[in-house]
């Protein structure tokens, strides 16, 4: 297989970033609890992908699982690095206000991230219209009728998309679960 040129490497990193940065960022917010740390995590993870791509073995794990391991490792490093800092409070945006149990150690907190990762990936592979109804319902707390009014979609369409989105999420999570390998 030919060696990638400089622009191809950039294109590769760019494409991977487009695909996975929301998941890495979201999991970062969940684990680390504030946006600057989550941003630092995204940066660390994708630079590590570039620097450590040689350690990825496609015969041993999926790319997503490998990237999760990279993310977890970077998150643990960041968690330890800023352990002495006082956790920042929410900046007012409701979806950033993540409650964390301060009694849990970094390992415990980061270990919980595997489910977050899987759910995030399951949401990301939904197409945009189906993801939208789930995000508005679950994260926005809107009823089906309110989603209909907010988006202009007929109520029946909202219900149909919710049903299909749930079905897809169930399938995706089942697939991920059955293909899961031990995360060490």
């Amino acid at each position, binding site marked *: *297989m030919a060696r990638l040129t400089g622009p191809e490497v950039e294109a590769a*990193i*760019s494409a991977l970033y487009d695909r996975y940065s929301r998941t890495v960022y979201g999991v970062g917010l969940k684990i680390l609890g504030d946006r600057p740390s989550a941003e630092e995590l995204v*940066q660390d993870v*994708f630079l590590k992908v570039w620097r450590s791509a040689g350690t990825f073995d496609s015969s041993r794990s999926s790319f997503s699982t490998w990237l999760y391991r990279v993310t977890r490792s970077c998150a643990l490093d960041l968690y330890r690095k800023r352990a002495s800092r006082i956790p920042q409070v929410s900046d007012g945006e409701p979806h950033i206000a993540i409650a964390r149990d301060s009694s849990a150690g970094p390992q415990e907190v980061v270990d919980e991230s595997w489910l977050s990762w899987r759910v995030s990936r399951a949401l990301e592979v939904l197409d945009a219209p189906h993801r939208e109804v789930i995000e508005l319902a*679950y994260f926005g707390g809107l009823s089906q009728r309110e989603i209909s009014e907010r988006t202009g979609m007929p109520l029946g369409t909202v219900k149909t998309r919710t049903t299909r989105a749930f079905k897809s999420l169930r399938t995706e999570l089942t697939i991920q679960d059955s293909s899961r390998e031990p995360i060490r």
Partner: protein
Amino acid sequence: MKCAKIHPNLPAFVLGGLESQEDAEVRRHLASCSDCRRELEELRKVNRALEAAPPPANPPSHLKDEILSQVRAEQRYLSTEDESSVAEERASSTIARSKNLRIILSSAAAAAVVAFVAIGVLLGFQREEPPVATIQLVPTPQEAAGLEGYWGVAEIRPQPSGNQQVELKLNNFEQPKPNSYYELWFVSGESRISAGSFTSVGKGETRVMLNAPPETRNYHTLLITEEHVDERPAPGDEAALKGVVP
């Protein structure tokens, strides 16, 4: 109330998104329907999993530029190293990274059913992988008029041999005329490569599995034409469906 009616409301019920009257109807139905109660438990599992979902948020746009800038800087540094043993070691490390980036992209692309045409890694990975590209086939303008529920999807999977396996899923694709058949083409500009011929069952779904040679990787448009038996082997003009590889 029948299950056929109540089932569509169960996900919304689990999410707490029904109006009070609908919510009450679902509860009444659940009290007497064990099938729906079982379904409800499954849906609740999904709902519980959603509790672990990270908030839907995008990282700030400048982050990507910063990361790519850093990658560029590291690439420049690596490429200007001397021919010393250290430099050789770094260079081989760069090659390993580059190779693996290509593999990573193939894997990632397969996982998300998206093709990275721009960097030439569209195809050629593992046989168990999901399709590398899923292409919507839409009627050509002359075929679209008066047709209902007429559409198709093509899923392209790389094969170890280098060939591309194409699975066509066509809906309500009418049968070809007598003494005719359909042919799938990969098109690039004026060039075409045939991926094989087939017929259709008409109403309902027609599934067809075809194979195309490796050369079709660089042909980014799919075309289905109707061909007539005993005529010239060149492609006909009666295009019926068309799709563009993303």
